[in-house]
Protein backbone atom coordinates (compact mmCIF):
# COMPACT_ATOMS: atom_id res chain seq x y z
CA UNK A 1 0.00 0.00 0.00
CA UNK A 2 1.41 3.35 -1.03
CA UNK A 3 1.76 5.93 1.75
CA UNK A 4 1.56 9.60 0.86
CA UNK A 5 2.16 12.52 3.21
CA UNK A 6 0.81 15.73 1.69
CA UNK A 7 1.84 19.02 3.28
CA UNK A 8 1.94 17.22 6.62
CA UNK A 9 2.27 19.73 9.47
CA UNK A 10 2.67 19.02 13.15
CA UNK A 11 2.80 21.51 15.99
CA UNK A 12 3.32 20.97 19.70
CA UNK A 13 2.04 23.73 21.97
CA UNK A 14 2.27 26.26 19.17
CA UNK A 15 5.75 25.21 18.04
CA UNK A 16 5.75 23.97 14.49
CA UNK A 17 7.89 20.85 14.59
CA UNK A 18 7.21 19.72 11.05
CA UNK A 19 6.13 22.21 8.43
CA UNK A 20 4.43 21.03 5.26
CA UNK A 21 6.37 17.88 4.68
CA UNK A 22 5.78 15.83 1.55
CA UNK A 23 6.75 12.20 1.31
CA UNK A 24 5.69 9.23 -0.76
CA UNK A 25 6.50 5.66 0.17
CA UNK A 26 5.88 3.28 -2.71
CA UNK A 27 3.92 0.05 -2.34
CA UNK A 28 6.14 -2.71 -0.92
CA UNK A 29 9.02 -0.35 -0.35
CA UNK A 30 11.02 -0.04 2.85
CA UNK A 31 11.96 3.55 3.52
CA UNK A 32 14.19 4.85 6.27
CA UNK A 33 13.60 8.12 8.06
CA UNK A 34 17.11 8.99 9.12
CA UNK A 35 18.27 11.92 11.17
CA UNK A 36 19.70 13.12 14.45
CA UNK A 37 17.53 13.13 17.56
CA UNK A 38 14.90 15.83 17.56
CA UNK A 39 14.68 16.03 13.78
CA UNK A 40 11.02 14.99 13.76
CA UNK A 41 11.40 11.47 12.39
CA UNK A 42 9.58 9.80 15.28
CA UNK A 43 6.92 12.51 15.18
CA UNK A 44 6.33 11.68 11.54
CA UNK A 45 6.09 7.98 12.35
CA UNK A 46 3.62 8.54 15.18
CA UNK A 47 1.53 10.74 12.92
CA UNK A 48 1.37 7.97 10.33
CA UNK A 49 0.20 5.44 12.90
CA UNK A 50 -2.26 7.87 14.48
CA UNK A 51 -0.75 8.40 17.91
CA UNK A 52 -0.14 12.07 17.05
CA UNK A 53 -2.91 14.04 15.48
CA UNK A 54 -2.12 15.84 12.26
CA UNK A 55 -2.29 19.64 12.48
CA UNK A 56 -2.32 20.21 8.77
CA UNK A 57 -2.11 18.35 5.49
CA UNK A 58 -3.10 14.82 4.69
CA UNK A 59 -1.91 11.27 5.18
CA UNK A 60 -3.07 8.83 2.52
CA UNK A 61 -2.84 5.04 2.53
CA UNK A 62 -3.42 4.24 -1.12
CA UNK A 63 -6.51 6.31 -1.94
CA UNK A 64 -7.79 6.28 1.62
CA UNK A 65 -7.38 9.51 3.59
CA UNK A 66 -6.53 8.42 7.12
CA UNK A 67 -5.54 11.85 8.48
CA UNK A 68 -8.42 11.98 10.94
CA UNK A 69 -8.95 8.29 11.57
CA UNK A 70 -8.12 6.95 15.03
CA UNK A 71 -5.24 4.48 15.28
CA UNK A 72 -7.59 1.54 15.65
CA UNK A 73 -9.03 2.05 12.16
CA UNK A 74 -5.78 2.63 10.30
CA UNK A 75 -4.57 -0.97 10.17
CA UNK A 76 -0.95 -0.13 10.87
CA UNK A 77 1.51 -2.46 12.58
CA UNK A 78 4.04 -0.77 14.83
CA UNK A 79 7.21 -2.13 16.42
CA UNK A 80 8.27 0.09 19.29
CA UNK A 81 11.82 0.70 20.40
CA UNK A 82 11.29 -1.16 23.68
CA UNK A 83 8.98 -3.68 21.92
CA UNK A 84 6.06 -2.88 24.30
CA UNK A 85 5.20 -6.54 24.78
CA UNK A 86 2.43 -7.23 27.26
CA UNK A 87 4.34 -8.69 30.22
CA UNK A 88 1.40 -10.54 31.77
CA UNK A 89 0.61 -12.50 28.60
CA UNK A 90 2.40 -15.42 27.00
CA UNK A 91 4.01 -14.95 23.61
CA UNK A 92 1.02 -16.66 22.02
CA UNK A 93 -1.43 -14.32 23.77
CA UNK A 94 0.70 -11.33 22.84
CA UNK A 95 0.61 -12.17 19.16
CA UNK A 96 -3.05 -13.18 19.34
CA UNK A 97 -4.10 -9.95 21.04
CA UNK A 98 -4.83 -7.91 17.87
CA UNK A 99 -6.94 -10.80 16.57
CA UNK A 100 -8.86 -11.40 19.79
CA UNK A 101 -9.67 -7.70 19.91
CA UNK A 102 -11.14 -8.13 16.46
CA UNK A 103 -13.09 -11.15 17.79
CA UNK A 104 -11.73 -13.64 15.26
CA UNK A 105 -12.71 -17.24 15.86
CA UNK A 106 -10.41 -19.32 18.05
CA UNK A 107 -9.34 -21.56 15.18
CA UNK A 108 -8.50 -18.58 12.97
CA UNK A 109 -6.47 -16.95 15.72
CA UNK A 110 -4.60 -20.15 16.37
CA UNK A 111 -3.75 -20.66 12.72
CA UNK A 112 -2.73 -17.03 12.14
CA UNK A 113 -0.50 -16.96 15.22
CA UNK A 114 1.24 -20.20 14.28
CA UNK A 115 1.79 -19.01 10.70
CA UNK A 116 3.33 -15.73 11.74
CA UNK A 117 5.39 -17.45 14.46
CA UNK A 118 6.84 -19.69 11.81
CA UNK A 119 7.70 -16.72 9.61
CA UNK A 120 9.47 -14.98 12.47
CA UNK A 121 11.09 -18.21 13.78
CA UNK A 122 9.56 -18.17 17.26
CA UNK A 123 7.32 -21.25 17.01
CA UNK A 124 9.01 -22.93 19.99
CA UNK A 125 8.62 -19.86 22.23
CA UNK A 126 4.85 -19.47 22.15
CA UNK A 127 4.25 -20.62 25.72
CA UNK A 128 6.84 -18.35 27.30
CA UNK A 129 6.42 -14.96 28.91
CA UNK A 130 8.17 -11.89 27.42
CA UNK A 131 10.33 -11.68 30.55
CA UNK A 132 11.83 -15.06 29.73
CA UNK A 133 13.00 -14.05 26.26
CA UNK A 134 16.23 -12.51 25.03
CA UNK A 135 16.20 -9.11 23.35
CA UNK A 136 16.31 -10.59 19.86
CA UNK A 137 13.45 -12.97 20.63
CA UNK A 138 11.37 -10.13 22.09
CA UNK A 139 12.00 -8.22 18.90
CA UNK A 140 10.71 -11.14 16.84
CA UNK A 141 7.59 -11.35 19.00
CA UNK A 142 6.98 -7.63 18.56
CA UNK A 143 7.33 -8.04 14.79
CA UNK A 144 5.00 -11.01 14.79
CA UNK A 145 2.39 -9.10 16.78
CA UNK A 146 2.64 -6.13 14.44
CA UNK A 147 2.25 -8.32 11.37
CA UNK A 148 -0.31 -10.87 12.51
CA UNK A 149 -3.40 -9.00 11.39
CA UNK A 150 -1.90 -8.26 7.97
CA UNK A 151 -1.56 -4.50 8.29
CA UNK A 152 -1.31 -2.24 5.27
CA UNK A 153 1.78 -0.56 6.67
CA UNK A 154 4.57 -1.60 9.03
CA UNK A 155 6.26 1.06 11.12
CA UNK A 156 9.52 0.41 12.96
CA UNK A 157 10.67 2.88 15.58
CA UNK A 158 14.38 2.41 16.26
CA UNK A 159 13.83 -1.35 16.33
CA UNK A 160 17.48 -2.25 16.82
CA UNK A 161 18.50 0.38 19.36
CA UNK A 162 18.04 -1.90 22.36
CA UNK A 163 20.01 -4.85 20.99
CA UNK A 164 23.69 -5.67 21.40
CA UNK A 165 25.96 -5.40 18.38
CA UNK A 166 25.84 -9.02 17.27
CA UNK A 167 22.05 -9.35 17.57
CA UNK A 168 21.66 -6.05 15.79
CA UNK A 169 23.43 -7.47 12.77
CA UNK A 170 21.26 -10.58 12.86
CA UNK A 171 17.96 -8.76 13.33
CA UNK A 172 18.84 -6.28 10.60
CA UNK A 173 18.75 -8.99 7.98
CA UNK A 174 15.85 -10.77 9.69
CA UNK A 175 13.61 -7.71 9.60
CA UNK A 176 14.52 -7.15 5.99
CA UNK A 177 13.81 -10.80 5.13
CA UNK A 178 10.40 -10.68 6.82
CA UNK A 179 9.53 -7.41 5.14
CA UNK A 180 10.46 -8.80 1.73
CA UNK A 181 8.59 -12.07 2.33
CA UNK A 182 5.40 -10.29 3.33
CA UNK A 183 5.85 -7.56 0.74
CA UNK A 184 4.59 -5.00 3.21
CA UNK A 185 5.21 -1.28 2.89
CA UNK A 186 7.47 -0.29 5.77
CA UNK A 187 8.90 2.84 7.32
CA UNK A 188 11.96 2.52 9.53
CA UNK A 189 12.92 5.31 11.89
CA UNK A 190 16.55 5.29 12.90
CA UNK A 191 19.46 7.53 13.75
CA UNK A 192 21.92 4.88 12.66
CA UNK A 193 23.02 5.39 9.07
CA UNK A 194 24.31 1.81 8.79
CA UNK A 195 20.86 0.44 9.60
CA UNK A 196 19.20 2.78 7.16
CA UNK A 197 21.63 2.01 4.36
CA UNK A 198 21.63 -1.75 4.82
CA UNK A 199 17.90 -2.32 5.31
CA UNK A 200 16.08 0.13 3.11
CA UNK A 201 15.42 0.76 -0.56
CA UNK A 202 15.40 4.49 -0.04
CA UNK A 203 16.47 6.85 2.71
CA UNK A 204 14.80 10.12 3.61
CA UNK A 205 17.26 12.13 5.62
CA UNK A 206 15.69 14.67 7.95
CA UNK A 207 16.92 17.68 9.84
CA UNK A 208 14.93 20.23 11.81
CA UNK A 209 11.58 18.84 10.67
CA UNK A 210 12.46 18.91 6.99
CA UNK A 211 13.40 16.19 4.56
CA UNK A 212 16.75 17.24 3.14
CA UNK A 213 17.11 14.48 0.58
CA UNK A 214 15.40 11.25 -0.48
CA UNK A 215 17.50 8.80 -2.42
CA UNK A 216 18.76 5.27 -2.61
CA UNK A 217 21.55 4.59 -0.11
CA UNK A 218 24.14 4.42 -2.89
CA UNK A 219 23.12 7.70 -4.52
CA UNK A 220 22.85 9.44 -1.22
CA UNK A 221 26.35 8.37 -0.29
CA UNK A 222 28.02 9.31 -3.54
CA UNK A 223 25.84 12.27 -4.42
CA UNK A 224 24.78 14.13 -1.25
CA UNK A 225 22.83 17.31 -1.75
CA UNK A 226 24.20 19.15 1.28
CA UNK A 227 27.20 18.95 3.57
CA UNK A 228 24.86 17.74 6.35
CA UNK A 229 23.89 14.68 4.32
CA UNK A 230 27.52 14.04 3.42
CA UNK A 231 28.50 14.29 7.07
CA UNK A 232 25.68 12.11 8.30
CA UNK A 233 26.29 9.19 5.95
CA UNK A 234 29.46 7.18 5.96
CA UNK A 235 31.46 5.51 8.66
CA UNK A 236 34.16 6.60 9.35
CA UNK A 237 32.67 10.01 8.54
CA UNK A 238 33.71 12.38 5.81
CA UNK A 239 36.21 15.15 6.64
CA UNK A 240 35.75 18.75 5.61
CA UNK A 241 38.32 21.36 4.52
CA UNK A 242 37.45 25.04 4.59
CA UNK A 243 38.92 27.37 2.01
CA UNK A 244 38.07 29.45 -1.04
CA UNK A 245 37.84 29.28 -4.81
CA UNK A 246 40.84 30.46 -6.78
CA UNK A 247 41.60 30.12 -10.46
CA UNK A 248 39.32 27.16 -11.12
CA UNK A 249 40.43 25.28 -8.05
CA UNK A 250 40.16 25.14 -4.30
CA UNK A 251 42.74 26.68 -1.98
CA UNK A 252 43.01 26.21 1.76
CA UNK A 253 42.69 29.46 3.69
CA UNK A 254 46.44 29.68 4.33
CA UNK A 255 47.21 28.81 0.74
CA UNK A 256 49.10 25.67 1.64
CA UNK A 257 46.99 23.32 -0.46
CA UNK A 258 45.55 23.55 -3.96
CA UNK A 259 42.98 21.17 -5.40
CA UNK A 260 41.99 21.27 -9.05
CA UNK A 261 38.21 21.14 -9.12
CA UNK A 262 36.17 20.90 -12.33
CA UNK A 263 33.15 22.62 -10.76
CA UNK A 264 35.25 25.48 -9.46
CA UNK A 265 35.78 26.94 -12.93
CA UNK A 266 32.33 28.58 -12.81
CA UNK A 267 32.79 29.92 -9.29
CA UNK A 268 34.12 33.44 -8.85
CA UNK A 269 37.51 33.61 -7.18
CA UNK A 270 37.44 34.25 -3.46
CA UNK A 271 34.12 32.46 -2.81
CA UNK A 272 34.19 30.58 0.49
CA UNK A 273 33.99 26.84 -0.10
CA UNK A 274 33.95 23.66 1.93
CA UNK A 275 35.36 20.51 0.41
CA UNK A 276 34.34 17.11 1.72
CA UNK A 277 36.71 14.21 1.31
CA UNK A 278 35.65 10.69 2.25
CA UNK A 279 38.33 8.68 4.06
CA UNK A 280 38.59 6.14 1.23
CA UNK A 281 39.63 8.91 -1.18
CA UNK A 282 42.65 9.94 0.82
CA UNK A 283 45.54 7.51 1.11
CA UNK A 284 48.34 5.96 -0.93
CA UNK A 285 46.65 6.52 -4.32
CA UNK A 286 45.43 9.76 -5.88
CA UNK A 287 46.52 12.80 -7.85
CA UNK A 288 47.15 15.53 -5.29
CA UNK A 289 49.96 14.95 -2.80
CA UNK A 290 49.29 16.14 0.73
CA UNK A 291 51.64 15.98 3.66
CA UNK A 292 50.69 16.13 7.28
CA UNK A 293 51.16 14.54 10.62
CA UNK A 294 49.28 11.47 11.84
CA UNK A 295 47.60 12.51 15.09
CA UNK A 296 45.49 9.42 15.60
CA UNK A 297 45.74 5.85 14.36
CA UNK A 298 43.28 3.09 15.06
CA UNK A 299 43.29 -0.46 13.87
CA UNK A 300 40.02 -2.19 13.13
CA UNK A 301 41.45 -5.53 12.12
CA UNK A 302 40.87 -5.47 8.39
CA UNK A 303 41.42 -1.73 8.05
CA UNK A 304 43.32 1.04 9.73
CA UNK A 305 41.91 4.45 10.40
CA UNK A 306 44.11 7.54 10.51
CA UNK A 307 43.52 11.18 11.32
CA UNK A 308 46.05 13.37 9.55
CA UNK A 309 46.52 17.00 10.61
CA UNK A 310 47.49 19.40 7.84
CA UNK A 311 49.85 22.32 8.51
CA UNK A 312 46.90 24.74 8.86
CA UNK A 313 45.23 22.60 11.51
CA UNK A 314 42.45 20.99 9.51
CA UNK A 315 42.16 17.23 9.76
CA UNK A 316 41.74 14.65 7.00
CA UNK A 317 40.60 11.10 7.71
CA UNK A 318 41.97 8.14 5.86
CA UNK A 319 40.99 4.49 5.84
CA UNK A 320 43.47 1.97 4.46
CA UNK A 321 44.04 -1.78 4.42
CA UNK A 322 45.63 -2.86 7.68
CA UNK A 323 49.40 -2.48 7.77
CA UNK A 324 51.90 -1.73 10.45
CA UNK A 325 54.15 1.01 9.11
CA UNK A 326 52.51 4.25 10.30
CA UNK A 327 51.93 5.30 13.89
CA UNK A 328 50.51 8.35 15.60
CA UNK A 329 53.11 11.12 15.48
CA UNK A 330 54.63 10.12 12.14
CA UNK A 331 54.78 12.59 9.30
CA UNK A 332 53.28 11.25 6.11
CA UNK A 333 52.88 12.36 2.56
CA UNK A 334 49.78 10.78 1.08
CA UNK A 335 47.60 11.49 -1.90
CA UNK A 336 44.09 12.65 -2.48
CA UNK A 337 41.68 11.83 -5.33
CA UNK A 338 40.53 15.29 -6.28
CA UNK A 339 37.86 13.95 -8.67
CA UNK A 340 35.99 12.39 -5.75
CA UNK A 341 35.98 15.53 -3.63
CA UNK A 342 32.55 16.97 -2.84
CA UNK A 343 32.29 20.76 -2.99
CA UNK A 344 29.83 22.70 -0.86
CA UNK A 345 28.96 26.37 -0.74
CA UNK A 346 29.11 28.27 2.51
CA UNK A 347 25.43 27.52 3.29
CA UNK A 348 26.01 23.78 2.90
CA UNK A 349 24.58 23.42 -0.58
CA UNK A 350 26.43 21.07 -2.89
CA UNK A 351 27.93 22.75 -5.96
Amino acid at each position, binding site marked *: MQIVLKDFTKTFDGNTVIDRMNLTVEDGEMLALLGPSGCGKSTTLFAV*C*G*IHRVNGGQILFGDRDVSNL*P*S*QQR*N*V*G*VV*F*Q*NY*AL*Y*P*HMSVFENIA*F*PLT*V*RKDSKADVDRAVRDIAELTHISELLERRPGQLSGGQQQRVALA*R*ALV*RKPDVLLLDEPLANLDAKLRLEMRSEIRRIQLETGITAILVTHDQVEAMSMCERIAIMKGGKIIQIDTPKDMYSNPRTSFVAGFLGNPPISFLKGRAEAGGFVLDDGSLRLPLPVASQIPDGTDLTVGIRPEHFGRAGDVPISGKVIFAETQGRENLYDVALPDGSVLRSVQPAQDDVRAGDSVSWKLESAAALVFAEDGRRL
Partner: protein
Amino acid sequence: MTRNYSNWPIILVLLLISAPIIVMYAFLLVDTVTTSPPGSAIPNGFTLSHWRFLIDPTATGDVWGPTLTTILFTASIVLIVLGVSSTAGYALSRLNMPFRRFFLGGILVMHAFPLVTLIIGVFLVLQFVGLYNTLTGVVLVKAGLMLPFGIWIMKGFYDTVPWEIEMAGVQDGASRFTVWRRLILPQVRPGLFALALFAAIDAWGEYMLPRILAPSADFEVLSIYLNTVSDPDSTTYNFNLFKSVGLFYTLPILALYAIFRDRLMNIFGGGTKG
Protein backbone atom coordinates in the same frame (compact mmCIF):
# COMPACT_ATOMS: atom_id res chain seq x y z
CA MET B 1 21.57 -17.41 51.69
CA THR B 2 24.79 -16.36 53.36
CA ARG B 3 25.23 -12.92 54.78
CA ASN B 4 28.38 -11.08 55.57
CA TYR B 5 26.97 -9.89 58.88
CA SER B 6 24.97 -11.66 61.54
CA ASN B 7 21.30 -11.01 62.08
CA TRP B 8 20.83 -11.77 65.73
CA PRO B 9 21.78 -8.35 67.21
CA ILE B 10 19.17 -6.64 65.07
CA ILE B 11 16.54 -9.21 65.91
CA LEU B 12 17.37 -8.90 69.61
CA VAL B 13 16.98 -5.13 69.57
CA LEU B 14 13.69 -5.37 67.69
CA LEU B 15 12.48 -8.00 70.15
CA LEU B 16 13.32 -5.77 73.11
CA ILE B 17 11.55 -2.79 71.61
CA SER B 18 8.43 -4.76 70.77
CA ALA B 19 8.47 -6.77 74.01
CA PRO B 20 5.56 -4.83 75.62
CA ILE B 21 3.36 -5.51 72.61
CA ILE B 22 4.34 -9.16 72.48
CA VAL B 23 3.68 -9.59 76.21
CA MET B 24 0.29 -7.93 75.86
CA TYR B 25 -0.71 -10.09 72.94
CA ALA B 26 0.49 -13.18 74.78
CA PHE B 27 -1.62 -12.34 77.83
CA LEU B 28 -4.59 -11.51 75.62
CA LEU B 29 -4.30 -14.97 74.08
CA VAL B 30 -3.69 -16.82 77.33
CA ASP B 31 -6.38 -15.01 79.32
CA THR B 32 -9.11 -16.00 76.89
CA VAL B 33 -8.69 -19.69 77.63
CA THR B 34 -7.71 -19.66 81.32
CA THR B 35 -9.00 -18.61 84.69
CA SER B 36 -6.79 -16.77 87.14
CA PRO B 37 -7.30 -16.04 90.85
CA PRO B 38 -8.36 -12.46 91.66
CA GLY B 39 -5.42 -10.06 91.96
CA SER B 40 -3.02 -12.37 90.12
CA ALA B 41 -1.89 -12.37 86.54
CA ILE B 42 -0.76 -15.99 86.67
CA PRO B 43 -3.45 -18.34 85.30
CA ASN B 44 -4.40 -21.37 87.35
CA GLY B 45 -6.88 -23.24 85.20
CA PHE B 46 -7.98 -23.91 81.61
CA THR B 47 -11.47 -22.99 80.42
CA LEU B 48 -13.30 -22.36 77.20
CA SER B 49 -16.12 -20.56 78.98
CA HIS B 50 -14.89 -17.13 77.85
CA TRP B 51 -15.62 -18.17 74.29
CA ARG B 52 -19.21 -19.12 75.04
CA PHE B 53 -20.34 -15.82 73.49
CA LEU B 54 -19.83 -17.46 70.10
CA ILE B 55 -22.79 -19.77 70.63
CA ASP B 56 -24.62 -18.26 73.59
CA PRO B 57 -26.31 -14.91 72.88
CA THR B 58 -27.10 -14.44 76.57
CA ALA B 59 -23.44 -13.90 77.43
CA THR B 60 -23.05 -10.53 75.71
CA GLY B 61 -25.75 -10.46 73.10
CA ASP B 62 -25.58 -11.92 69.60
CA VAL B 63 -22.08 -11.62 68.10
CA TRP B 64 -22.83 -12.91 64.61
CA GLY B 65 -25.13 -10.08 63.62
CA PRO B 66 -22.42 -7.43 64.15
CA THR B 67 -19.87 -9.73 62.51
CA LEU B 68 -21.95 -9.99 59.35
CA THR B 69 -22.58 -6.26 59.40
CA THR B 70 -18.84 -5.63 59.73
CA ILE B 71 -18.09 -7.96 56.83
CA LEU B 72 -20.69 -6.20 54.70
CA PHE B 73 -19.39 -2.80 55.83
CA THR B 74 -15.80 -3.76 54.99
CA ALA B 75 -16.63 -5.42 51.67
CA SER B 76 -18.66 -2.44 50.42
CA ILE B 77 -15.90 -0.03 51.34
CA VAL B 78 -13.26 -2.17 49.63
CA LEU B 79 -15.38 -2.40 46.48
CA ILE B 80 -16.02 1.33 46.33
CA VAL B 81 -12.40 2.24 47.03
CA LEU B 82 -11.09 -0.23 44.43
CA GLY B 83 -13.61 0.76 41.81
CA VAL B 84 -13.08 4.49 42.11
CA SER B 85 -9.33 4.41 42.73
CA SER B 86 -8.57 2.12 39.78
CA THR B 87 -10.47 4.33 37.36
CA ALA B 88 -9.69 7.74 38.84
CA GLY B 89 -6.01 6.84 39.25
CA TYR B 90 -5.89 5.88 35.57
CA ALA B 91 -7.55 9.10 34.52
CA LEU B 92 -5.16 11.21 36.57
CA SER B 93 -2.15 9.29 35.35
CA ARG B 94 -2.98 9.04 31.66
CA LEU B 95 -5.80 11.21 30.40
CA ASN B 96 -5.15 14.75 29.40
CA MET B 97 -8.22 16.06 31.15
CA PRO B 98 -9.06 19.58 32.26
CA PHE B 99 -8.23 20.52 35.86
CA ARG B 100 -5.90 17.56 36.20
CA ARG B 101 -3.45 19.46 38.37
CA PHE B 102 -6.30 20.86 40.42
CA PHE B 103 -7.58 17.35 41.09
CA LEU B 104 -4.13 16.11 42.03
CA GLY B 105 -3.67 19.01 44.41
CA GLY B 106 -7.15 18.53 45.80
CA ILE B 107 -6.45 14.90 46.53
CA LEU B 108 -3.33 15.78 48.47
CA VAL B 109 -5.16 18.44 50.44
CA MET B 110 -7.95 16.02 51.27
CA HIS B 111 -5.34 13.55 52.40
CA ALA B 112 -3.93 16.12 54.80
CA PHE B 113 -7.17 16.73 56.73
CA PRO B 114 -7.70 14.59 59.82
CA LEU B 115 -11.11 12.98 60.05
CA VAL B 116 -12.26 14.92 63.12
CA THR B 117 -11.94 18.26 61.38
CA LEU B 118 -14.33 17.10 58.69
CA ILE B 119 -16.84 15.34 60.86
CA ILE B 120 -19.22 18.26 61.40
CA GLY B 121 -19.45 18.99 57.71
CA VAL B 122 -19.90 15.32 56.94
CA PHE B 123 -22.63 15.13 59.59
CA LEU B 124 -24.49 18.05 58.03
CA VAL B 125 -24.28 16.58 54.54
CA LEU B 126 -25.52 13.19 55.73
CA GLN B 127 -28.34 14.80 57.63
CA PHE B 128 -29.26 16.80 54.55
CA VAL B 129 -29.36 13.84 52.13
CA GLY B 130 -31.10 11.65 54.67
CA LEU B 131 -28.33 9.13 55.15
CA TYR B 132 -27.69 9.94 58.78
CA ASN B 133 -28.05 6.89 61.02
CA THR B 134 -27.81 4.49 58.05
CA LEU B 135 -25.17 1.91 57.15
CA THR B 136 -25.07 3.30 53.59
CA GLY B 137 -24.17 6.73 54.91
CA VAL B 138 -21.30 5.44 57.02
CA VAL B 139 -20.00 3.28 54.18
CA LEU B 140 -20.04 6.23 51.76
CA VAL B 141 -18.27 8.53 54.21
CA LYS B 142 -15.63 5.97 55.14
CA ALA B 143 -14.99 5.04 51.50
CA GLY B 144 -14.89 8.71 50.53
CA LEU B 145 -12.32 9.48 53.17
CA MET B 146 -10.11 6.63 51.97
CA LEU B 147 -10.31 7.61 48.31
CA PRO B 148 -7.60 10.29 48.27
CA PHE B 149 -5.09 7.76 49.53
CA GLY B 150 -6.36 5.07 47.17
CA ILE B 151 -6.38 7.27 44.09
CA TRP B 152 -2.93 8.60 44.84
CA ILE B 153 -1.52 5.11 45.30
CA MET B 154 -3.14 3.82 42.12
CA LYS B 155 -1.93 6.81 40.14
CA GLY B 156 1.58 5.94 41.28
CA PHE B 157 1.17 2.39 40.04
CA TYR B 158 -0.27 3.50 36.70
CA ASP B 159 2.62 5.92 36.25
CA THR B 160 5.05 3.01 36.21
CA VAL B 161 3.33 1.26 33.28
CA PRO B 162 5.14 2.29 30.09
CA TRP B 163 3.24 4.45 27.61
CA GLU B 164 4.31 2.23 24.75
CA ILE B 165 2.18 -0.63 26.03
CA GLU B 166 -0.86 1.56 25.77
CA MET B 167 0.09 2.81 22.31
CA ALA B 168 0.79 -0.75 21.19
CA GLY B 169 -2.66 -1.80 22.39
CA VAL B 170 -4.30 1.02 20.48
CA GLN B 171 -2.31 0.13 17.36
CA ASP B 172 -3.46 -3.45 17.74
CA GLY B 173 -6.99 -2.16 17.28
CA ALA B 174 -8.20 -2.13 20.88
CA SER B 175 -10.32 0.68 22.29
CA ARG B 176 -8.99 2.73 25.18
CA PHE B 177 -11.30 0.84 27.53
CA THR B 178 -10.14 -2.56 26.31
CA VAL B 179 -6.55 -1.41 26.62
CA TRP B 180 -7.18 -0.37 30.20
CA ARG B 181 -9.00 -3.54 31.16
CA ARG B 182 -6.88 -6.13 29.37
CA LEU B 183 -3.44 -4.56 29.22
CA ILE B 184 -3.02 -1.94 31.91
CA LEU B 185 -5.13 -3.25 34.79
CA PRO B 186 -3.29 -6.58 35.00
CA GLN B 187 -0.05 -4.69 35.46
CA VAL B 188 -1.26 -2.68 38.44
CA ARG B 189 -2.69 -5.77 40.12
CA PRO B 190 -0.15 -5.70 42.95
CA GLY B 191 -1.31 -2.17 43.70
CA LEU B 192 -4.98 -3.10 43.59
CA PHE B 193 -4.34 -6.04 45.86
CA ALA B 194 -2.40 -4.02 48.40
CA LEU B 195 -5.00 -1.27 48.32
CA ALA B 196 -7.81 -3.78 48.88
CA LEU B 197 -6.01 -5.22 51.88
CA PHE B 198 -5.30 -1.81 53.24
CA ALA B 199 -8.90 -0.67 52.82
CA ALA B 200 -10.19 -3.88 54.38
CA ILE B 201 -8.00 -3.55 57.44
CA ASP B 202 -8.85 0.10 57.84
CA ALA B 203 -12.61 -0.44 57.43
CA TRP B 204 -12.63 -3.43 59.76
CA GLY B 205 -11.15 -1.32 62.53
CA GLU B 206 -13.38 1.71 62.00
CA TYR B 207 -15.04 2.84 65.25
CA MET B 208 -15.46 6.60 65.14
CA LEU B 209 -17.63 6.95 62.05
CA PRO B 210 -20.34 4.41 62.95
CA ARG B 211 -20.30 5.77 66.46
CA ILE B 212 -20.78 9.38 65.41
CA LEU B 213 -22.77 9.09 62.21
CA ALA B 214 -25.07 6.24 63.18
CA PRO B 215 -25.36 6.39 66.98
CA SER B 216 -28.92 5.10 67.23
CA ALA B 217 -29.10 2.92 64.13
CA ASP B 218 -30.41 -0.62 64.28
CA PHE B 219 -27.11 -2.10 63.08
CA GLU B 220 -23.92 -2.60 65.00
CA VAL B 221 -20.40 -3.17 63.73
CA LEU B 222 -17.95 -5.24 65.77
CA SER B 223 -16.04 -2.25 67.11
CA ILE B 224 -19.24 -0.82 68.58
CA TYR B 225 -20.23 -4.25 69.83
CA LEU B 226 -16.85 -4.59 71.55
CA ASN B 227 -17.41 -1.24 73.17
CA THR B 228 -20.74 -2.40 74.62
CA VAL B 229 -19.11 -5.54 75.95
CA SER B 230 -16.46 -3.53 77.70
CA ASP B 231 -19.00 -1.47 79.65
CA PRO B 232 -18.16 -2.20 83.34
CA ASP B 233 -21.66 -1.21 84.46
CA SER B 234 -23.26 -3.88 82.30
CA THR B 235 -24.73 -6.94 84.05
CA THR B 236 -22.80 -9.33 81.86
CA TYR B 237 -19.45 -7.60 82.34
CA ASN B 238 -16.54 -9.99 82.43
CA PHE B 239 -13.05 -8.85 81.59
CA ASN B 240 -11.88 -12.16 80.19
CA LEU B 241 -14.99 -12.34 78.05
CA PHE B 242 -14.16 -8.88 76.79
CA LYS B 243 -10.69 -10.08 75.88
CA SER B 244 -12.11 -13.05 74.01
CA VAL B 245 -14.39 -10.83 71.96
CA GLY B 246 -11.44 -8.52 71.33
CA LEU B 247 -9.34 -11.40 70.09
CA PHE B 248 -12.22 -12.63 67.92
CA TYR B 249 -12.40 -9.14 66.44
CA THR B 250 -8.64 -8.87 65.86
CA LEU B 251 -7.99 -12.34 64.47
CA PRO B 252 -9.08 -11.70 60.84
CA ILE B 253 -6.80 -8.70 60.64
CA LEU B 254 -3.87 -10.55 62.16
CA ALA B 255 -4.49 -13.35 59.69
CA LEU B 256 -4.63 -10.94 56.74
CA TYR B 257 -1.38 -9.35 57.84
CA ALA B 258 0.32 -12.69 58.33
CA ILE B 259 -0.76 -14.11 54.97
CA PHE B 260 -0.38 -11.07 52.76
CA ARG B 261 2.48 -9.26 54.50
CA ASP B 262 4.65 -9.18 51.36
CA ARG B 263 1.91 -7.88 49.09
CA LEU B 264 0.98 -5.21 51.60
CA MET B 265 4.52 -3.89 51.48
CA ASN B 266 4.07 -3.37 47.73
CA ILE B 267 2.16 -0.21 48.39
CA PHE B 268 5.28 1.49 49.68
CA GLY B 269 7.37 0.37 46.74
CA GLY B 270 5.23 2.39 44.34
CA GLY B 271 4.62 -0.65 42.20
CA THR B 272 8.13 -1.61 41.22
CA LYS B 273 8.62 -5.30 41.40
CA GLY B 274 11.04 -6.21 44.14
